[in-house]
């Protein structure tokens, strides 16, 4: 059968699969999918913050003169911005009593107004009592307060000067760090999407096999066309989902983040090229992994078999993802180049490179290279699919078996 006929037939199958998936109510749920982890994340953050507020540690009781306490409090106020957003240890003033030892015992054992520790001895001979060690946060903060308070007590504080701030776009250091972060995020996004969506093609195949439609298809069009049609239908479905999520994500950032999308650190190749590359590298990654999954699906006849068979592939993908993530931040290292060259890790490595390096030509090279591998793997997977899905192809007996027969 001529190639255009294969493509025509693939298009007919892809159109059916695409419309059957996208024009359904369940696809709306699919689009809402990424919202669930976000909502859970927001929920957990809210709960966490509440728990954090409720779990605010008790203050340190300071048995001292009013003057010393005021100095310590002023020192705390002075230092607080440096620790932001973490809170500094709080202080509570206690007037000294005759029996200091008994007073300390009483404070430390009080359940109504619990304290972390008790500080006495003023600024000259400070003594911290409680279940604290010299290295923990309470002790460190108290040391800082006392040092600052002693400086304040020694003389009038220096007149505060205003630091003039000028924003500059030349921020190689911080920007590089943020771009590494963008690269990692892009890589993780690509990996999660590939694994999730490539797996979906399997369920379609199982549906086809269980409803016996595969026989109708195979009698009318080449098996290669069925394979390509299914693969590209799910690719189109996935890209539709990603497009919706990208627009929704940009809208959400614009709505809720100060400065909107423009405040995000742009990847080295710029946002438009980066987003385009995410789509292209996702397609490459999806085709490479999806073809493998489809080859596996041809062997399986139930969803359970699919799960069992796809497990090693998923694990293999995790290894590849780990390999590609080693390349983040060091695109010109041996690992970085190896990850970019190895076809199955190449899309992940290259999307990280797009975040870090501005040059576009390596992407052109990588896409040609990945395209060659996509063609090769599609050919191989298609042959496996053909042999397995219909128990077709030539006899698998070896030549010596045939001779003996």
């Amino acid at each position, binding site marked *: 059968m001529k190639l255009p006929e294969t493509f025509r037939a693939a298009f007919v199958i892809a159109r059916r699969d695409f419309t059957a998936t996208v024009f359904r109510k369940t696809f709306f749920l699919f689009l809402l999918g990424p919202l669930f982890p976000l909502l859970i994340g927001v929920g957990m953050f809210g709960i966490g913050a509440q728990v954090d507020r409720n779990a605010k540690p008790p203050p340190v009781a300071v048995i001292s003169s009013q003057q010393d306490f005021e100095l310590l409090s002023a020192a705390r106020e002075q230092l607080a911005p440096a620790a932001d957003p973490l809170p500094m240890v709080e202080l509570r003033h206690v007037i000294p009593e005759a029996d200091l030892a008994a007073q300390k015992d009483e404070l430390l054992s009080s359940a109504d107004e619990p304290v972390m520790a008790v500080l006495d001895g003023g600024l000259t001979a400070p003594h911290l009592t409680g279940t604290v060690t010299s290295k923990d946060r309470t002790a460190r903060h108290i040391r800082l307060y006392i040092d600052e308070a002693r400086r304040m007590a020694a003389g009038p504080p220096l007149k505060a000067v205003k630091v003039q701030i000028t924003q500059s776009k030349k921020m190689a250091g911080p920007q590089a760090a943020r771009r590494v972060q963008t690269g990692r995020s892009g890589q993780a996004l690509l990996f999660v999407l590939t694994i999730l969506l490539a797996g979906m093609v399997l369920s379609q195949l199982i549906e086809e096999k269980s409803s016996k*439609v595969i026989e109708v298809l195979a009698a009318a069009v080449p098996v290669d066309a069925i394979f390509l049609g299914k693969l590209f239908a799910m690719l189109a479905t996935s890209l539709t989902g990603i497009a919706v999520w990208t627009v929704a994500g940009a809208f959400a950032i614009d709505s809720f983040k100060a400065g909107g999308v423009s405040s995000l650190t742009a990847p080295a190749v710029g946002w438009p090229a980066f987003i385009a590359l995410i789509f292209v590298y996702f397609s490459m990654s999806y085709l490479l992994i999806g073809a493998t999954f489809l080859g596996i699906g041809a062997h399986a006849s139930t969803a359970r078999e699919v799960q069992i068979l796809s497990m090693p592939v998923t694990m293999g993908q995790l290894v590849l993802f780990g390999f590609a993530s080693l390349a983040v931040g060091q695109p010109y290292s041996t690992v970085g180049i190896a990850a970019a060259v190895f076809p199955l890790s190449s899309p992940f490595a290259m999307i990280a490179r797009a975040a870090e390096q501005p040059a576009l030509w390596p992407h052109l090279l990588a896409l040609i290279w990945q395209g060659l591998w996509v063609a090769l793997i599609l050919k191989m997977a298609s042959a496996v699919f053909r042999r397995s899905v219909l128990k077709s192809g030539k006899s698998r007996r070896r030549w010596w078996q045939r001779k003996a027969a």
Partner: protein
Amino acid sequence: MGERAIAAEARDLTKDFDGKMAVDGVSLSVPEGSITGILGPNGAGKTTTIRMLLGIIDPTSGTRSLLGHDRPLEVARAVGYLPEERGLYPSMPAAEAIAFMGALRGLPIREGRRRALQLLQDAGHEDWAKKPIRTLSKGMAQTVQLLGTIIHEPKLIVLDEPFAGLDALNQQKLEQLIRDQSAAGVTVIFSTHVIAHAERLCERIAIIAEGRAVFEGDVDEARGKLRPIVHLRTRSESGPWQSALPQSAKKVGGEWRFELPASGPEPLLKALIDGGAGIETLSIERPGLHDAFIAIAGEAAAREMGHVPASEEVA
């Protein structure tokens, strides 16, 4: 038949599924415009033969041609196929399913939708058009698939066990559809293990048993494999006339039954009359396709197990 072009042909087709020989040297030829039945018991290899003919699977050895092409999928647009295990997308509306089957075989989807509605209307089922397949009964879904098989107006229709699962009324409708297609010049091949359909519809049959084609030819030729059966009632209980009966003659309920001797009815009649049989009734029954099938398929099975020597083969 010799003058008619061949629509489908198989030569020594074999199919080996990992050491199990499903089809073993099947040959058959289907003349254009004919209705040909492929008969055989369940598991005989009919479906595998059909799948090889249509190019769904490749044969292990042997050759096939469909409408003059040795690559069957190249002429898929001119072929309609109803598989044994019916396959339709459960969520697809009936009209859309019919149009989709046409689209697979090159019919533009818009034209397919138009024809699908027309076909449903002609069949008196226009109310099914928008119903998802899953809401239809098995028989209704089968009708939908059958309409999908002919929507692109193929030259050759292959139906694998088309009558299975249909009630008597729908079987009758299907028989009429096959006759209509044949009258329009379409070649029809169908497989069945119910002989009555083949007897009513086919001009040619191929009998497949245990992976082998044990007969291929006209229906009359198949019937000719068996000798006519004589049913005889006599007034005389015994006498010299009994020597005229073959050794295989059996008496069932007061009636003698035996194969008509090769010499024909006249010498038999003469011997019975001369022997004083007192013939009460005598009838000669031409064997049906069912008898021929059992004789041929049963014999093949026996040969497969080595119980029938080659010298005893039916000529």
